[in-house]
């Protein structure tokens, strides 16, 4: 398995019109041009990308491959390579196209009618299933960049194999009325599927552990499902959850060791 064989997974949690949303569209378009199969999972405020004008920009990606006959030589090379790969392995996912998946729960909180094709309403299980395949995973969310990130609110990490551990980074304070629960739901999804996962709160993200609704995080540590970690000194938490505080060097080590890093 080479890097070129890996697919690309974009977790899009940023609302339409944001810089992160624009970067997401550019990144998926670039990976698709390079012949990769792309899975885009819209979650939280990101589901609004599947409505109105942004939806058209994303939908255009799903049929770009059909227009590749007239594309440049690089596009044609990748399309040919994808066809050859499918001949060798018919079960391999189609290359050079995109699946647009929308978190059904996030969507229903904001919209009354289902998203239109090519957007597919689905559950968080689809997100974590996509992580089972070799992918480059990148988050385009609300959080501040972890140090060392080259993509602002995102961090890219190739995932060559399963069971290397998922690190979910929460670097933003909850803003909208659904932020708290939707951030927690990502961690609960990982717990429900018994993934080897940790949640790291850093900077303003530590405020997810404050306030009356913070107690919901405690279920993750009370039942031993997921470790909760925070950068810096002791967390003033209302959650009652056991939160392990890390020095800066420990945070960097954690990021280095993670198989999959999703910056929300």
């Amino acid at each position, binding site marked *: 398995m080479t890097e070129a064989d890996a697919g690309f997974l974009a977790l899009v949690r940023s609302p339409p019109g944001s810089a992160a949303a624009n970067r997401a569209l550019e990144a998926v378009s670039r990976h698709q041009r390079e012949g990769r199969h792309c899975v885009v999972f819209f979650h939280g405020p990101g589901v609004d990308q599947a409505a109105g004008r942004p939806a058209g920009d994303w939908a255009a990606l799903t049929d770009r491959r059909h227009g590749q006959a007239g594309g440049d030589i690089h596009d044609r090379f990748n399309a040919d390579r994808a066809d050859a790969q499918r001949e060798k392995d018919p079960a391999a996912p189609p290359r050079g196209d995109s699946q647009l998946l929308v978190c059904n*729960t996030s969507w229903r909180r904001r919209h009354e009618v289902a998203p239109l094709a090519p957007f597919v309403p689905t*559950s968080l299980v689809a997100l974590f299933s996509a992580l089972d395949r070799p992918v480059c995973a990148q988050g385009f969310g609300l959080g501040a960049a972890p140090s060392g990130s080259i993509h602002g609110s995102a961090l890219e990490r190739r995932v060559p194999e399963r069971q290397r551990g998922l690190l979910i980074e929460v670097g933003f304070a909850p803003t909208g009325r659904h932020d708290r629960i939707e951030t927690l*739901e990502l961690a609960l999804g990982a*717990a*429900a599927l018994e993934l080897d996962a940790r949640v790291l709160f850093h900077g303003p993200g530590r405020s997810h552990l404050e306030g009356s*609704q913070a107690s919901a995080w405690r279920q993750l540590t009370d039942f031993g499902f997921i470790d909760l970690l925070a950068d810096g000194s002791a967390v003033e938490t209302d959650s009652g959850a056991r939160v392990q505080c890390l020095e800066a060097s420990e945070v960097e080590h954690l990021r280095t060791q993670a198989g999959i890093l999703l910056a929300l």
Partner: protein
Amino acid sequence: MNDPENQRARVSGHDIDLDVDGHLRHADAWSEALAECLARQDGVVLEPLHWWVIHFVRAHQRDYGMPPLMRTIVSEMRRQTDCDDASSRTLYRLFPDGPVRMACRYAGLPRPESCI
């Protein structure tokens, strides 16, 4: 004609308001008699293990503000009960139309929002 917006359950001579999904509108109207009434409508006879799940779900909602994951129910069922085949399959045998959602309904809690 049935009005889905105004469902009711009749318990001990009193009408109890339910929401469009058949869940209790007012949590303080819950009683074990209501749970039995709702289960009977679904063709489910509540046995001791059903009751353990229902009370566990209510306690989890009280402690964490949301219903438990199915994984949580299974692991605590193994730990807290003498059920020797606690598993998601056992939960589906008890609550065939979705264990967490059905248990929440009988427990007087809102329909779970989350897809997990």
